[in-house]
């Protein structure tokens, strides 16, 4: 039987843990609110941009801009978006599982796969397993700004043009609701007209000619890099909001579990205490009885 003191210590330890998880939950909830507002605000813009791009990619000549090229996909790059911090439930685990699965699928098709990674957790995970990591960005989620998106989008577009990879997929958590995330695998390069078109627009196939102002090439040069920055920004925001949601849910669960443990141990503590008192009483009564 454990001593009363050790039980008391245990209870207070659980209580401390509960305080921490509760505080983390509160912080996550506050951050979630902010990042949720941001992603909901940014979505329409990113969505419209994609609609325009997919309309465009159907009607312009693919050779008119280097970022519109379509090459025979031999080299594949997977951008894995994870968080910088842990304690957020299955958030990073789900991403890691999905991306490993995806990479293996590509490899069985005889494709060469490289990773670029956003977030400390994903970097650690894949580095431990010695996967080929081409590029990594950590610490972007502390203070997420559009600059980060420009940075990441710029790197990816540059490398696509240079031919470092022929296809780019992104694996990230999409923010569905405060308590729900969904792991998404999305193709970013090359821009696929058909698939995105059906998703982004409901107007049906377009007919007639398109007018451009200024010249087509000039317009594309302005529009397309922008598109990738916007998409990168959206993906980062999605992931940030999803992370806070996941953390909030995880910490809520942890707080509840700590509560249950405290209840259980307290009950046991009281029982033990009572048993000790009863035993002492019996001793006294027995002693008094013997003196008679």
């Amino acid at each position, binding site marked *: 039987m454990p001593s009363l003191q050790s039980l008391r210590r245990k209870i207070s330890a659980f209580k401390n843990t509960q305080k921490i998880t509760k505080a983390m939950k509160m912080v996550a909830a506050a951050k979630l609110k902010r990042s949720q507002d941001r992603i909901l605000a940014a979505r329409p813009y990113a969505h419209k941009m994609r*609609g325009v791009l997919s309309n465009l990619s159907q009607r312009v000549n693919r050779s008119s801009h280097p970022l519109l090229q379509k090459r025979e996909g031999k080299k594949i790059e997977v951008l894995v978006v994870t968080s910088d911090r842990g304690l957020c439930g299955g958030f990073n685990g789900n991403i890691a599982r999905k991306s490993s699965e995806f990479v293996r699928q590509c490899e069985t098709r005889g494709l060469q796969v490289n990773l670029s990674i956003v977030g400390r957790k994903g970097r650690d995970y894949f580095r431990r397993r010695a996967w080929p990591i081409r590029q990594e960005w950590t610490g972007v989620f502390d203070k997420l700004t559009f600059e980060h998106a420009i940075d990441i989008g710029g790197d990816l577009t540059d490398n696509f043009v240079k031919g470092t990879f022929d296809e780019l997929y992104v694996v990230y958590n999409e923010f569905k609701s405060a308590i729900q995330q969904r792991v998404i695998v999305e193709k970013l390069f090359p821009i696929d007209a058909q698939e995105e078109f059906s998703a982004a627009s409901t107007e049906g196939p377009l007919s007639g000619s398109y007018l451009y102002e200024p010249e087509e090439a000039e*317009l594309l040069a302005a529009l397309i890099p922008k598109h990738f920055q916007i998409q990168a920004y959206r993906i980062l925001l999605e992931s940030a909001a999803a992370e806070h949601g996941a953390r909030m849910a995880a910490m809520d669960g942890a707080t509840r579990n700590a509560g249950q443990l405290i209840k259980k141990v307290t009950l046991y503590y009281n029982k033990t205490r009572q048993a000790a008192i009863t035993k002492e009483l019996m001793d006294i009564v027995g002693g008094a009885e013997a003196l008679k």
Partner: protein
Amino acid sequence: MPGKILLEVVTPEKLLLSQQVDEVIAPGSEGEFGVLPGHCHFLSTLKIGELRYRVDQETHSMAVLWGFAEVTPTKVTIMAEVAEKAEDIDVERATAKVAEAERRLQAGGLPSEVKEAQVSLEKARLRKKIAERAKKTSQV
């Protein structure tokens, strides 16, 4: 007259406007262009300027600072980096900005600084103009 045309204005911060309108006049980088319902497909970059749209007899305006416009027969999508409705612009702040930009322009300095001052002056003047006009019309 084939009815109305849907005008949507989005910025990275939010969906600013989504409304059926009769006419849109946008500041294209190579000159203003007007769009009526049934316009042919058209894609353009935008410069710093005023976007006007008409609903029935009422004309509204907003400041648009760079962006793109996509026009289809039923829809105009304005993707602006910054867009502000006339009634949301703070006239005093805009006036102060104009003064500040003018001062910076006078002070001169490196070519890049001068260029920056010119751009911010242009932006500030535009916002001031639009805001003041909006104020006047709302008072009348």
